[in-house]
């Protein structure tokens, strides 16, 4: 495996262009976006506000009464699903071969699509309530 990694650095950039090179760049670009979005998400929702207050009513009446936060959370959904599932595709590729690898990769894509669908449904269709006060 040492040939596939530069010491201390990331996975070697795929040569020859194409989809794999695009994925290599998109992993890094989505990672930079997630650096900001995930850390701010965690600090806002787990540190600044107490998470035990964030029940379903709180999400409807406070968090998602704002189109801005709905848009930010939808962007976060897309970036995190791409980054985490493409990362898992790399893990599956490292530990499995042949038909098992193909089956696991397809299962990852199906699960990612399912989560994208249900996440998009809830962020788009949860009733929009004007916040009190």
């Amino acid at each position, binding site marked *: 495996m040492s040939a596939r990694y530069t010491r*201390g*650095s990331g996975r070697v950039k795929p040569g020859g262009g194409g989809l794999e090179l695009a994925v290599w760049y998109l992993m890094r670009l989505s990672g*930079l976006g997630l650096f900001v979005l995930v850390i701010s998400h965690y*600090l806002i929702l*787990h540190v600044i506000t107490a*998470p*035990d207050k964030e029940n379903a009513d709180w999400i*409807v009446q406070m968090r998602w009464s704002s189109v801005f936060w709905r848009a930010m959370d939808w962007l976060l959904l897309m970036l995190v699903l791409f980054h985490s599932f493409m990362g898992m595709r790399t893990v599956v590729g490292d530990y499995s071969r042949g038909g098992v690898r193909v089956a696991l990769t397809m299962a990852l894509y199906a699960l990612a699509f399912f989560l994208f669908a249900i996440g998009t449904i809830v962020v788009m269709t949860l009733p929009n309530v004007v916040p009190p006060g």
Partner: protein
Amino acid sequence: MLVRYHGGEGMLAWAFHRISGVAIWAFVILHVIDIFLVGAAPKVYDTLLSFYATPIGILMEWLLGAAVLYHALNGLRIVIMDFWPPMTRYHRVMWRINWVIFAIIGIPVTWVIFRQFAHALGWTI
């Protein structure tokens, strides 16, 4: 690969990156489903939230935060080296800087989450 440790910061950084990444992926699956339940079954969401607010839930929240912070900082280190290869010479220095930043952000966050933990146990601090 994970168990055949050959030593060196690069290998350790890679192993931690992979372990934290898989853990975060597993939580993302749970978290997208729980937020879907806010619309589909709000009472089920509130029940799950009351688990997140237990001492065990808060401990897991703290570990999630540590995994996210490590993965983010080491990911930034990887991006720096991949986009500016001469920086690979400084991979050990950046690894140590990462742990300094990890502590600077992690210690105050740990204090805030420890207060939630103490509150959930009924301690007064």
